[in-house]
């Protein structure tokens, strides 16, 4: 009941016209970002961060904007999957399998509508799960001491590669890069400067917002300039909406299963939305067996992955908000934003910044209603925007990135630094080194170091303190599993995923 009261307060925050306006804007831009192939949700949120600073938004509004973008991107990913057979983002990959065949049969409008409903259901289930689970987990997190936190961060790093990660070595390199960058500046446990080379601007360390905007947004711009500077795509014919109420009702069990599975996948560290949509698709396939015609445009083949990836998106917020450990790339970017707004995620946030936490959760619920409205009657707008040449979008994004970063600190040094990170990000992406582990290294590295130091001070230098409580032993075990499992199960899962896609239709 206490939770309900907080949620009501959250609605009071989220329903102010000002915040509602930004939720709507975020939902719109998020959907747009999601449907542009190549521009994933993590990049989308990173691109929008400077905007929050440019406009000088208060913390709760900034977070509402970014979570709406996040939710929107999860909706938007399906649009290009269905219409073009190109996933708008990674989690929307599975939506291609039955979405595109539906479109080829002239049922594109139906596929878009039902997938919007499925996204809504998945997201709703995920958000309800978040509302129930987060406060409990937050209270539980209060029992965490430095040793437990150290084990938790270890777990986060161990599961970083995730089950779907491609090259573990590259993940390690990326995480190490992130940790290296994070060591620049004052070391709070000794009070000494590290790797600053006497440059005053480096004394407080490297601002991770700067690194994120550079790595994601600026490198994205460079990629766009390189690959997609040309004309927009030709307009796609959507067909008429023939979806019946009966059809929608028939997919409800699928929506529920997908949403719940997705949520669980999202909460687990290292899994994320892509796995959420994959699991729900394969489960649906095996549950229905021969009754379904998967791969040929079965409506449930569109519903399952969309409910799954949207459920997972909300689920990934749980560990981020309660423990300060992000469950996915996008939540890592959101975490960075929270920290730079001077809000420490974790149990404390639920008491000290209750208005922000619950405002964001309420905004997620409101955002979903907005998204449903945006994505069914107004879907034509996005389809048309899909064919806008990027040359019109690029200058706007570039301007916002520069103005935003400049407005944080009013320092031209930061702008040069951001460009440096952008070029670095471009090179790393060319080398296929993932960027998300860099951000995680940057965010979690110093926390892990700090907690190790604290644990050792508290135990007077006794290292066994690190595995002396049942909780920390449990975390060490899960971390061990997280490190070993992907090498055993990962290849099998990946092969299955690939096969599933091969079975699907190839674009002609």
């Amino acid at each position, binding site marked *: 009941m206490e939770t309900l009261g907080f949620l009501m307060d959250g609605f009071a925050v989220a329903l102010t016209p000002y915040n509602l306006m930004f939720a709507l804007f975020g939902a719109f831009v998020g959907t747009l970002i999601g449907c542009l192939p190549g521009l994933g949700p993590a990049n989308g949120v990173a691109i929008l961060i400077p905007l929050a600073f440019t406009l000088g938004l208060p913390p709760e509004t900034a977070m509402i904007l970014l979570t709406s973008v996040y939710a929107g991107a999860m909706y938007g990913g399906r649009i290009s999957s269905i219409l073009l057979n190109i996933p708008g983002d990674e989690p929307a990959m599975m939506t291609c399998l039955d979405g595109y065949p539906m479109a080829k049969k002239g049922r594109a409008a139906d596929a878009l509508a039902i997938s919007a409903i499925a996204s809504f259901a998945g997201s709703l289930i995920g958000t309800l799960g978040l509302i129930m689970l987060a406060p409990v987990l937050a209270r539980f997190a209060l029992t965490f*001491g430095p040793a437990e936190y150290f084990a938790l961060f270890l777990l986060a790093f161990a599961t970083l590669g995730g089950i779907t990660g491609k090259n573990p070595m590259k993940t390690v390199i990326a995480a190490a890069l992130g940790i290296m960058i994070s060591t620049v500046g004052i070391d709070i446990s000794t009070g000494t400067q590290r790797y600053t080379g006497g440059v*005053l601007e480096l004394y407080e360390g490297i601002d991770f917002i700067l690194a994120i905007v550079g790595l994601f947004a600026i490198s994205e711009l460079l990629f766009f300039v390189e690959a997609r500077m040309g004309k927009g795509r030709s307009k796609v014919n959507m067909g008429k909406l023939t979806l019946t109420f009966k059809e929608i009702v028939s997919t409800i069990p699928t929506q529920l299963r997908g949403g719940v599975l997705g949520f669980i996948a999202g909460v687990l560290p290292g899994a994320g939305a892509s796995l959420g949509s994959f699991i729900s698709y394969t489960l649906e396939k095996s549950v229905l067996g021969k009754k379904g015609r998967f791969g040929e445009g079965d409506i449930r083949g569109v519903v399952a992955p969309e409910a799954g990836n949207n459920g997972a998106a909300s689920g990934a917020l749980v560990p981020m908000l309660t423990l300060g450990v992000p469950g996915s790339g996008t939540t890592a970017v959101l975490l960075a934003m929270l920290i730079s707004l*001077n809000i420490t995620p974790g149990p404390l946030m639920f008491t000290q910044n209750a208005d922000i936490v619950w405002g964001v959760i309420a905004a997620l619920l409101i955002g979903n209603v907005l998204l449903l409205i945006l994505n069914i009657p107004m879907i034509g707008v996005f389809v048309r925007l899909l064919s806008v040449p990027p040359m019109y979008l690029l200058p706007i994004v570039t301007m916002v990135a520069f103005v935003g970063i400049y407005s944080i600190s009013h320092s031209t040094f930061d702008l040069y630094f951001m460009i440096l990170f952008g070029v670095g990000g471009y090179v790393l992406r060319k080398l296929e080194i993932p960027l998300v582990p860099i951000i995680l290294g940057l965010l979690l590295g110093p926390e892990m170091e700090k907690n190790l130091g604290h644990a050792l001070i508290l135990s007077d230098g006794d290292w066994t303190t690190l595995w002396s409580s049942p909780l920390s032993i449990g975390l060490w075990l899960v971390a061990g599993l997280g490190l070993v499992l992907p090498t055993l199960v990962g290849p099998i899962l990946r092969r299955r995923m690939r096969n599933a896609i091969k079975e699907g239709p190839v674009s002609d």
Partner: protein
Amino acid sequence: MFFKTTIAFAAAAAFSMSAMAWEPSGKVECLAPADPGGGWDFTCRSVGKVMQELDLVSGSVQTVNMAGAGGGVAYAHTVSKRKNDDKLIVAASTATTTRLAQKQFPGMDASMVKWVGALGADYGIIAVSKNSKYENLNQLMDAVKENPRSVKFAGGSARGGWDHLKVLIAAKAAGAEKLPSIPYLSYNNGGEAMTQVVGGQVDAFTGDVSEATGFMESGDLRVLAVLSEERLPGKFGDIPTAREQGIDALGPNWRGFYMPKDTSAEAQQYWVDAVDTLYASDEWKAVMKNNGLISFHPKAGEFESFVTNQVQDIETLSREIGLLK
């Protein structure tokens, strides 16, 4: 003879007239050495607002943020690029003197600027959880004296930062030895540190009184002492000072200003007077009350020596704990 005197007199009068009359024309700049939203930014913005309300400046006061190196970037900027700009004041606090004392602004020291004045302070406290066995500061410090490793402190600043120094100031005043052995755990902010103390992971909290208001009111935190000269006003009146418990430790985290070195004496006098007038005004008292600031205002002319002494004290302490070689 007569002529000479007259001329001298006239010159002196003209000089003093102009001294009386010097005031910045046009826009005045207040440099906040941090991002918007922090303490220094608050100092600039609220002072600028009240100065305009009181007509202490003819034009407007513009706050300019220049973050970096904990104020070092702004300090270097003032010392090198703005050294004779008499329309510039820069927000400062104990964090500034701490970094100056610990040579964290390379090649710069406290004598390279003019210290204008202070406008209030947030006082240091030492607190424990409500379940702690320590009932007063003496019990806590006796435990420290007996075994320096027996009480673990948590605070929101880096090792050697102001929160850590307050522990050392109190321990030193209580007669403790082996200051470097007193364990100090640094957290990202006071709130995080307090949670660990309230949660029972760490023994004692060191911070400023404004940070602890929430946990104090909920009863989770027992404040053993405030490091002020006298008891604080209002709701903080129940907290005993360290002094009244026989431990002569002071820890004001003051808010104030410095200005460039090569400015005229008249300009300096103008700003010192402006800060005095501002401090005495009702408008400023309201700002202080709303933001948890408590009175702290060394008399004109004494602030410079206060800063010098504070820098020296911190330097000595930092040497004792091995932070400075």
